[in-house]
């Protein structure tokens, strides 16, 4: 029975979406609480998975290390299976998805337009995200990956800001262009890898794919496919120069959707690289590692510079995501155990910290109806509690010791320094830039003389605190004692590094 837990986590939200479509549309609170109830189930189950997860299991390319595995034939003619399970790479992501989805239901309380549609699509989105992280069959992965795309598109396009249509279409087309590249790659792998879509079995064929005599379009098979998959995932991360959809999507998306976008969706890009690109093409990963590290550094520095130039608070947070995802890339590309663990940990921590930051932006936006950094001033005087929580989030984002962001960044630098000294040095400058844009923003928004316009700004309310406090506690807790999450991923990240470096 236990192995069905992942299936339940994936499809209970879908059931919730179906239930919501049949609720009367003027019963707003009923719809909201129904959505919350259906999002609570995966959260409880995720918590249980986290508790019962066997830390000794390794995973990655070793099926025995996966837990809660279900493997059923789906389309036998093509060997497509309903094949799901979690290992150290996906377990933290599953936990993150369940947590943020649940909290975002509460962050969406203020949505007043077409509530039924909003919450139904939101739960459908959760199904897509969850499914993507637990899939071990390539087609299943692809299906969930695309399933997630559509609700996101509608959530931005219907409930977004003034330029929502443009942002939604841009998001959709960028991601789709990436994912179709992936589809070609999947088909090519299928026919070269013994006609299977099982990721585990494909990893076992890594040597066959790396055969230099094997070509596609007259070029090395493994390298072409690695690049195709990389672009598909890079668009999602987003890696410079594919990042331009991100600020648009974030600025237009409603708060909760920004949280999901930055907190979960971006991680799918780097998760895909770890789950798919590295173990299936370890040789190509070695060849391209330096290039990926360079891209990571560009992300870190370019993202930080862009963040510094922003007038819009939400855009600043959006670019800070570009910058912080660069650390993940750098840590991954270092191909050292510390770097990989740092990258995986950074994925989780960035998910929580950036979620807080977007929620915080949402709080002021709901009150002031604008997000101009220069339009505030001295908010600390009228909203002390809010300012306190905000400081926690921004300092965590800066990588202040004692908060969760610090540990991940240190591990990334530790790992990367062994492989790329100069790149690590350059990327360390990113820390200064991060401190720069965040402190400068804090000065303009929270400190200084109070802007008279906002002297009656109401303090953060209980519902908003409810969405922020749990994440804040996690950020503090993992900053002091990161082991509960790190021991989930340790075995898998080490295995991944050995897999690539020993190839």
């Amino acid at each position, binding site marked *: 029975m236990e192995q069905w837990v992942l299936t339940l986590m994936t499809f209970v939200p879908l059931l919730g979406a179906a239930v919501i479509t049949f609720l009367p549309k003027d019963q707003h609170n009923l719809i909201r609480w129904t959505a919350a109830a259906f999002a609570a189930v995966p959260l409880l189950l995720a918590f249980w998975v986290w508790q019962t997860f066997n830390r000794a299991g390794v995973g990655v390319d070793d099926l025995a290390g996966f837990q809660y595995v279900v493997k059923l034939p789906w389309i036998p*003619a093509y060997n497509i299976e309903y094949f799901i399970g979690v290992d150290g790479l996906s377990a933290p992501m599953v936990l993150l998805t369940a947590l943020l989805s649940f909290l975002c239901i509460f962050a969406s309380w203020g949505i007043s337009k077409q509530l039924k549609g909003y919450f139904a699509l939101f739960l459908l989105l959760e199904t897509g995200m969850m499914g993507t992280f637990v899939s071990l069959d390539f087609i299943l992965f692809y299906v969930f990956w695309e399933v997630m795309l559509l609700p996101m598109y509608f959530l931005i396009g219907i409930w977004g800001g003034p330029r929502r249509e443009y942002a939604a279409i841009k998001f959709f087309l960028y991601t789709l262009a990436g994912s*179709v590249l992936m589809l070609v790659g999947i088909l090519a792998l299928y*026919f070269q890898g013994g006609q299977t879509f099982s990721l585990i079995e494909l990893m076992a064929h890594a040597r066959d794919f790396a055969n230099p005599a094997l070509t596609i379009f007259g070029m090395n098979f493994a390298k072409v496919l690695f690049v195709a998959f990389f672009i598909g995932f890079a668009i999602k991360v987003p890696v410079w120069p594919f990042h331009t959809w991100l600020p648009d999507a974030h600025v237009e998306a409603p708060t909760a959707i920004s949280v999901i976008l930055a907190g979960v969706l971006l991680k799918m890009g780097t998760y895909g690289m770890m789950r798919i690109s590295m173990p299936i093409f370890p040789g190509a990963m070695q060849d391209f590692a330096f290039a990926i590290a360079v891209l990571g550094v560009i992300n870190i520095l370019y993202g930080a510079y862009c963040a510094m130039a922003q007038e819009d608070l939400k855009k600043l947070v959006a670019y800070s995501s570009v910058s912080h995802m660069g650390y993940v890339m750098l840590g991954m590309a270092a191909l050292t155990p510390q770097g990989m663990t740092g990258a995986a940990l950074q994925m989780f921590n960035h998910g929580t910290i950036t979620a807080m930051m977007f929620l915080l932006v949402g709080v002021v936006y709901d009150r002031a109806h604008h997000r101009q950094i220069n339009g505030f001033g001295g908010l600390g005087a009228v909203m002390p509690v809010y300012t306190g929580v905000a400081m926690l989030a921004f300092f965590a984002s800066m990588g202040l010791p004692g908060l969760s962001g610090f540990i991940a960044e240190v591990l990334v630098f530790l790992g990367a320094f062994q492989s790329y000294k100069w790149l690590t040095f350059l990327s360390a400058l990113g820390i200064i830039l991060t401190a720069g844009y965040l402190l400068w923003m804090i000065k303009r928004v929270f400190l200084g003389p109070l802007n008279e316009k906002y002297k009656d700004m109401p303090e953060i309310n209980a519902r908003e605190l409810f969405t922020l406090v749990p994440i804040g506690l996690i950020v503090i807790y993992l900053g002091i004692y990161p082991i509960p999450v790190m021991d989930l991923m340790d075995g898998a990240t080490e295995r991944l590094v050995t897999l690539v470096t020993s190839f």
Partner: protein
Amino acid sequence: MDFSGLNVAALLPELLVSGGGLLVMALHAAFRGRQDRQLVWVSLASVVAALAFCLNPLTVEPGYFGSALSDPMAFAGRITVLAALVLLLPGGVAYARSRNLPQAEYLSLSLFAATGMMALASAGDLIVLFLAVEVLSISLYCLAGLMGERESSRQAALTYFLAGSFASGFLLFGMALLSGSAGTLDIAALGTGLARVSGTGTQWVALGGVVLMIAGLLFKVGAVPFHSWVAEVYSGSPTVVTAFMSTAAKAAAFAGFGRVLLALGSVSEAWVPLVGICAGATMILGNFTALVQGNFKRMLAFSSVAHAGYLLLGLMAVGAAGESLEAVIFYLLPYVLANAALFLVAAKVSQAGSGNYKLDDYKGLARRNPWLAGLLALLLLGLAGMPPLAGFMGKFMVFSAAVRAGHTGLAVLGILTSVVAVFTYLRPVVYAWFHEPEESGALNLDGGLAFVVWVAGAGLLLLGLWPRLWLDLCAGIGV
């Protein structure tokens, strides 16, 4: 003479449908048109009866000495055609009634056309193939001109007639060369016949025949370079007729010609590059032309050109490998379901709006009827090939067949043009969901249309999740 090979029962579905058509004409004459409202039930009864016989055939022996086949392909083609009729006839009659078109003519001609299509899907020799093509084409020419008082409809009928006649000419000449050099009319025997003449001068005659036949096929399915009639015919014909042409007729053509190309697998190096180039060009041209249309009906017309490209890709991929046409068979059913429903929706939305199929009519549709707007999105995304809908599975099978046959480049092209297609199909969705309505007031569907849209939507989802349902069904019936 021994008549045991006649086996009339093999043709029961065709006989039932054509009998239904004759009965409709007779009843129309007998009641002097006063009971035309009831004729749709007569037609549907014959279609449903034929469908029942397809699902539980009395015999799976070939009929008429091998001219009428009973293989999975034949049944798949017939069922697809009949399914399109079930979806289209009720809506079509309502359409005809609201625009004062002759209902009895619409019904009987549709049934005759369907007879031709079903015969085409199950044709075992070249003569029957040609007869079937003519039966369906002539009926469709008349149907295209059904709105005779409109110039666009007359023009469509004439264009279709001229283009179709050329195609028939090509086809017939190609058949003559092919059967002459292979020494047989039996489609299944063409391959061995051609193998016998390979290396001799006759080989070139045969190749000429193959090329001409392919030209005929490309004409009939509206593929590049013989696609120019499509826009005018599809947009000028009455919408329910366009729906019929772009769904059932195309399915039948692919089934019938697919069988011929499969039989020519031994000379595949002669026709595969040709079909490949046309498939690639069709995907590009169809998708990009569809992208810039501001008219929903024309957009669907060009998108159906694009789909012909994907189907050609599937045909050439399996043809070269000599495998079964599973990918093509599968691709057709969701395509037919979605297209049939979308054309009917187009007619309804246009009637309630500008009257000339402008995309603007879809603005704010979600406000006026959220369920319709949701299903519209589902159907369009199904056509676009988004998982988990059936369109994705169809494309997946076609592209994987192409990759397996070594046509990776064309598969990549197909996948990239699919992205263009998604953009095309999203535009009405964007209008429906993201824009404010220009007209207020609910847009209610009548029962028949609602049935069609729901059935098509459910079908797309079901076939996407369990694609084997349809393939196993076909494999289970025929031999």
